């Protein structure tokens, strides 16, 4: 192969001259210096377009790193756990500024005049409108998430001129602005997308699935599904401070043991979403961030469709029988936050919060004796095989504890593919474990999904008229409204007394870092590669 234009020579030329191609052929990883970061994760990125049906959670990171939104959240310190996004601070990303009309029904955004897509074209309000239209029209998850912020129909979005974009709301809501900063409403190069759309596929789902077209901090240099995704920095990014890393390689490594070996050896800089056990063991030798996931609770759920659980004493007996500390240590290895042993009197609106329950077998037996089921009963406790790492140890401990108060528990393991249907759609599991977490960090949003009758994560078939009313009243109410706090406290009181969901603990997202800094936790639980820096 001495042909002067062979692929090999071409690559060498390219790498030596301009950065035509991202890789030298064979260069030891160490020589790459601080330009490249390698991240390993166990999850699979299966699409570069979050709006597509079937896009996996891990793929959301492409929406974050390659696309911009109008707004983003600020950053705060989490004591002992590095950085986190800050729900209370909203900052501009592609928008330069925004104003809200006095009635709260019209939001007007001015776009940054120097924002361009990767192809060099200026980002216009028409692009924003097309992208928002797409998110509310394609159906499935993006549409549901947009709806949470009151964004439901294309007519609500108006491109006034190139730089001005207006959203007309049906009702003012405190959730609208934060909902513009979640991964879903990202801004796509509509000219490029439309050029690749077809009559059958007006939203260019096929094209954007494989080829992102955005204005974000990183472009996708290479993507081998099931293997790796390589981000390359967009030097013209205006959405925030330019990322320190020129290149970020995301490698998929399914085996946690292998991921651990790689991060310990320092051949990769970030191991994202590692098991609690590894986090606990690596914490002494590496930088391990175990950030409690905001608005997320691991729960034990007694289903009201199952007769014995309609008895409030039975539910309280269970809440007093659960061995919280043992579960927290065995299932979470102490990563996360305990949610038991708090005050009964509710004085603030913090959520998740410690419940007034703690392990107390005498009280549990008292409640059991008072109930209509003093002799006990049999019940299956269902867990998902996909989530077995925390559900299995938890279930075993619950089984043992409930045996003490006469409830004979058998553990039923449900395959991952079946789990969602059984637990959330059919809501047919008498006693089960559940772990809903809300992206928008307000208690009313959590209650909307998990405590309202018929809503997806209300897997206990719970219905309480007052809760229904309180959630409807508080969902869109500003948090500084004088009516807000009392109503939220009342909601907590009812939910913690009636116990359709028995909070066990607040889980953590574990990330091990070896040779990088700047890691920031986000509610979407995906990696924000923009803030990472090699050290």
């Amino acid at each position, binding site marked *: *192969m001495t042909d002067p234009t*062979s*692929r*090999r020579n071409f*690559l060498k030329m390219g790498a030596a001259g301009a950065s035509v*191609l991202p*890789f030298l*052929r*064979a*260069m*030891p*990883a160490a020589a*790459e210096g601080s330009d490249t970061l*390698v991240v*390993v994760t166990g999850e*699979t990125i*299966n*699409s570069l377009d979050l709006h597509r*049906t*079937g*896009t*996996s959670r891990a793929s959301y990171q492409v929406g974050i790193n390659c696309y911009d939104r109008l707004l983003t959240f600020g950053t705060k310190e989490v004591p002992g756990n590095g950085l986190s996004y800050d729900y209370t601070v909203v900052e501009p990303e592609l928008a330069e500024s925004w104003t809200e009309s006095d009635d709260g029904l019209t939001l007007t955004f001015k776009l940054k005049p120097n924002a361009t897509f990767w192809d060099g074209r200026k980002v216009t309000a028409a692009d924003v409108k097309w992208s928002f239209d797409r998110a509310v029209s394609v*159906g*499935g*998850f993006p*549409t*549901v*998430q947009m709806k949470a912020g009151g964004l439901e129909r294309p007519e609500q979005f108006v491109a006034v001129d190139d730089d001005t974009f207006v959203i007309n709301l049906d009702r003012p809501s405190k959730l609208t602005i934060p909902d513009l900063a979640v991964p879903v409403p990202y801004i796509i190069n509509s000219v490029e997308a439309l050029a690749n759309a077809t009559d059958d596929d007006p939203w260019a789902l096929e094209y954007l*699935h*494989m080829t992102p077209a955005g204005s974000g901090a990183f472009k996708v240099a290479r993507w*081998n*599904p*099931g*293997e*790796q995704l*390589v981000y390359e920095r967009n030097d013209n990014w205006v959405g925030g401070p330019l990322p320190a890393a020129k290149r970020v*390689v995301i*490698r*998929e*490594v*399914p*085996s946690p*043991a*292998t991921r651990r*070996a*790689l991060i*310990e*050896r320092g*051949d990769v800089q970030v191991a994202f979403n590692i098991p609690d056990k590894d986090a606990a063991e690596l914490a002494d030798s590496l930088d391990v961030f175990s950030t409690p996931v905001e608005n997320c609770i691991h729960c034990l759920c007694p289903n009201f469709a199952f007769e014995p659980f309609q008895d409030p004493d039975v539910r309280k007996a269970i809440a007093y029988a659960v061995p919280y500390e043992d579960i927290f240590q065995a299932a979470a290895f102490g990563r996360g936050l305990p949610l038991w042993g708090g005050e009964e009197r509710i004085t603030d609106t913090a959520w998740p919060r410690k419940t007034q329950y703690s392990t107390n077998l005498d009280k549990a037996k008292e409640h059991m004796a008072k109930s209509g089921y003093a002799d006990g009963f049999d019940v299956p406790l269902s867990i998902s095989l*996909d989530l077995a790492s925390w559900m299995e140890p938890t279930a075993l401990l619950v089984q043992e504890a409930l045996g003490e108060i006469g409830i004979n528990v058998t553990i039923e393991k449900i*395959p*991952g*593919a*079946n789990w*969602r*249907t059984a637990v*959330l*759609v059919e809501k047919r599991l008498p006693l089960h474990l559940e772990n809903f977490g809300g992206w928008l960090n307000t208690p009313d949003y959590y209650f909307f*999904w998990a405590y309202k009758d018929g809503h*997806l994560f209300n897997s206990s078939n719970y219905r309480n008229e007052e809760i229904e009313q309180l959630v409807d009243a508080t969902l869109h109410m500003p948090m500084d409204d004088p009516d807000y706090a009392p109503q939220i406290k009342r909601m907590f009181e009812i939910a913690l007394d009636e116990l359709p969901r028995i909070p066990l603990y607040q889980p953590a997202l574990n990330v091990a870092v070896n040779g990088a800094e700047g890691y920031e936790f986000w509610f979407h639980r995906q990696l924000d590669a923009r803030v990472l820096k090699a050290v």
Partner: protein
Amino acid sequence: MLAASPRLRAILLRVAQAIPVVMGVVVISFVLTRALPGDPAVYFAGVAADEASIEQTRVAMGLDKPLPVQFAHYVADLLQGDLGQSLSSGRPVATDLANRLPASLELTLTALIIAVVIAVPLGVLAATRPGTWVDHLCRIVVTAGVSLPTFFTGILLIYIFYYILGIAPSPLGRLDFIYLDPDHVTGFYLIDAALMGDWETWWGAAKQLILPAATLALFTLAPIARMTRAAMLTALSSDFVRTARAAGLSNRTVLYGYAFRNALLPVVTTLGMVFSFALGANVLVEKVFAWPGIGSYAVEALVVSDYAAVQGFVLAMALLFVALNLVIDLLYTAIDPRIGFDAK
């Protein structure tokens, strides 16, 4: 022409016999995937989907239609060579298989070659020197190979050669991220890199291959060594070997010309079986070494009830085994002329 070449005729006959098998596989894989628990529409509608968006997803996936209609669509597409669209990867199943099958085959074949190169001589030596240290070594290797599960061997090898000694490359799949994939010709990185004359990439791919192939080889070595030893013992104690010895033939001729050749038949049969279960055992090795092979693809597809991908996988495997059986049958006739196709 067919009459003139009985072997060609026999091959065509065997291929024709495979057709009903493949048809059966198509029907069974379709029915079985539909019988899987779980509702793919719910799964693919995403984390916060409500009834309406689940229904939209169901319609978009064509799952609202009755089963016979779905089957008719599937067969019609199949006849045009279209294996369908994988929902989880969002790409045609044929593309996914073309990318991933070579990865698995490269790993499995390398492992088999290593296993044969070690196991066959080991088995022969053990048979000719029963009771000596070679025989005991053979027994130890075989027992270890059978009793150690592949994921354990894999993690152990990573621990020793990568984590402690640091001589193996990072277990990051087929190529470290600093290399570019070789141009796709066969999908076998070693072959493709060699075709390009790019020996650096070739060496990069070979390095990545050593540990997983060794893991799998250790597992496949056992039955081959065992079978070689047993077959050699039988052959060596048979009448024709005694006759050959009595006729004064050299030890070498007796051993390799007569005994070994006769012992090969059961070894080749075992090899075929070992190949098939090595492909199955691949799944675990693929997980440990982040190998983007077909086993992990199929398991992920099964977990999310990705019908098209599962069906494509089963079909590809069926075709592979039909081909494998044919090759083994041909090998039989090459090894032992007494076995003719006419006998069937």
